[in-house]
């Protein structure tokens, strides 16, 4: 009898040992991510912290690593993300409203749903190919004509839209918009779904139409959630490199889009604002990639400094998303 108990006790101890080992293994794997993050940040700071200074932020790329700056990348990213947001947010939110508020459960709706989840899985580089063919080259439709320009006069300035769009900010922004559209739609739908039906019913009961209900009740209530999702989608667009390399964002650029590098330039030459979307560009990420792949090792410091700038921007955006989420979680109670 005691023999059986001995065996049982030994096995139980073994099982507990196994359990503890497994617990430790799971614990370590989880914190592995944190360790990597730390090593990554230390590595980047160690390489780049000394290089981030005012000159780095305000000068163009250079053949001398110590003089290289990221100005063109910063302004390129600003213009690119501005137009990406301009295209993708209204469209994504519109699609989300349609799918959540209007769509009935038919084959078309189901097709859109399935399609959205598949689009989210398409590698970003394929979007780059799409942008290259559709926006940059326009299938070569205008290959015969030279310098074809679509001229649209606005009140104070004229827009000169080149056809095809070429390797411009506009092409990049359209490409990135398509890329983040599924993310924006999914996030906005979740925010809309969080608004309780009673809000809508209350609005209908007061005689509001469906659009009035959406415009004045549902949208304001879901705005914080939407903003959080949209900010995260935008930060994904900021970090995106591959599709922009494909559509041919330049790597060595010594100008900013529209030659605007501050408010003073806008006052001096207002036409620059109209020129910027159709100008060539580079972005922070592309400059980082370009610096990393140059053989001179000094450029790796410039790349690390560029990464610090990029991570700083992303950190601010993520913090904004978190703050918005927390503030409105406190305010809104249903």
């Amino acid at each position, binding site marked *: 009898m005691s023999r059986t108990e001995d065996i049982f006790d030994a096995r139980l101890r073994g099982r507990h040992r196994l359990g503890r080992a*497994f*617990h430790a293994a799971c614990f370590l794997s989880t914190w592995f991510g944190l360790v990597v993050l730390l090593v990554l940040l230390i590595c980047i700071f160690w390489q780049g912290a000394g290089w981030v200074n005012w000159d780095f932020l305000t000068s163009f790329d250079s053949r001398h690593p110590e003089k290289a700056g990221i100005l063109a990348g910063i302004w390129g990213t600003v213009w690119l993300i501005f137009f990406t947001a301009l295209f993708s947010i209204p469209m994504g939110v519109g699609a989300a409203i349609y799918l959540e508020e209007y769509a009935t459960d038919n084959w078309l709706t189901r097709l859109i749903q399935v*399609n959205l989840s598949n689009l989210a899985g398409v590698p970003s580089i394929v979007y780059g190919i799409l942008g290259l063919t559709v926006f940059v080259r326009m299938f*070569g439709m205008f290959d015969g004509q030279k310098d074809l320009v679509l001229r649209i006069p606005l009140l104070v300035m004229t827009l000169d839209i080149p056809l095809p769009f070429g390797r411009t900010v506009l092409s990049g922004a359209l490409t990135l918009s398509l890329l983040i559209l599924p993310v924006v739609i999914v996030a906005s739908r979740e925010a809309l779904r969080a608004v309780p039906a009673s809000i809508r019913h209350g609005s209908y009961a007061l005689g509001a139409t469906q659009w009035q209900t959406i415009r004045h009740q549902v949208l304001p209530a879901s705005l914080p959630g939407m903003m959080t999702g949209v900010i995260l989608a935008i930060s994904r667009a900021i*970090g995106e490199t591959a599709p922009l390399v494909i559509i041919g964002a330049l790597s060595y650029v010594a100008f900013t889009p529209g030659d605007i590098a501050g408010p003073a330039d806008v006052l001096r030459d207002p036409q620059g604002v109209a020129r910027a979307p159709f100008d060539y560009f580079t972005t922070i990420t592309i400059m980082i990639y370009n610096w990393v792949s140059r053989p001179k090792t000094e450029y790796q410091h410039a790349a690390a400094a560029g990464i610090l700038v990029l991570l700083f921007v992303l950190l601010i955006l993520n913090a904004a998303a978190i703050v918005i989420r927390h503030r409105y979680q406190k305010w809104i109670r249903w």
Partner: protein
Amino acid sequence: LRGDDVPTDSGTPGPTPDRSLTRQVSVARVKEQFIRLILFLCALASIVTTVAIIFVLVNEAIFAVTPGTAFFQEVSLKEFFTSTRWEPQYDEKHFGVMPLVAGTLLVAGIAAVIGLPLGLASSIYLSEYASPQARNIIKPILELLAGIPTVVYGYFALVFVTPYLLRPVFQDWLGFSVDVFNAASAGIVVGIMIIPTISSLSEDVLRSVPRGLREAGYALGSTKFDVSVKIVVPAALSGILASFLLAISRAIGETMAVVIAAGQSPNLSLNPFRNTETMTAYIVNMSLGDTPVGSIAYKSLYAVALSLFVITLLMNIGSQFILRRFREVYQ
């Protein structure tokens, strides 16, 4: 709406209020329908995007609708799938996609070896072991890891992983020769990159396993290890497999880390310490060069992109299928 209006109007004599009310309602209705149409078009944009992607790839790779010829109208499928050389830039061109596929699978394989166990283990930790407070700290950190741009991971692979991790261990200690650009460093960082994908998706399915199953396990004398590994993980297996597929598909489509760290020489070798080239890296390197538009080398870009698109699409569909087909439904 008009039907509802009639009874209220019937009480007031005279045609004027009736007509104005009707017109008002119909203008509002047109506006409502117009808004609905616009929103519908927004939703349709996603379908248009898919159609455009497929059209572009097929048009340049398989069958040219626009003037010119497509890639596979000049290069045979047999050459593409069986030739073991990918040399689009030389005079005597070879278009065998196998070396690129081998490079891609090598990097994705290394990423899977690192990312899948770590991701699964951390998802088990988060759902079974971690206290709510620990979870509140760890999850945002994993999200941060997921939010870091891939170009940063590429930098990390080239500047840290190869010189400070691979070279000391595998070259100085074990005697392999490690190239500056190698598949292993790219695979390692891609593996790190997919950890958050796996752990957050798997954690969701692990947590959705009902508590009763765990309690039953404990009642039968199981340890926490037994419950986690023999009850919870099998119950959530479909979701875990789906997350694995999704993560591997992401590793295959990953571009910047691979372009920076894995190199530019396509070869069939499975040696992880050698210079290699993946499908995504080829597309980037090709588009950086000054290949004339319309040349066969230029069109090869679309053939590779189409292959990549098909592979990742199949894996994503497979992932969704597993999730739907084998999901255990608990009341």
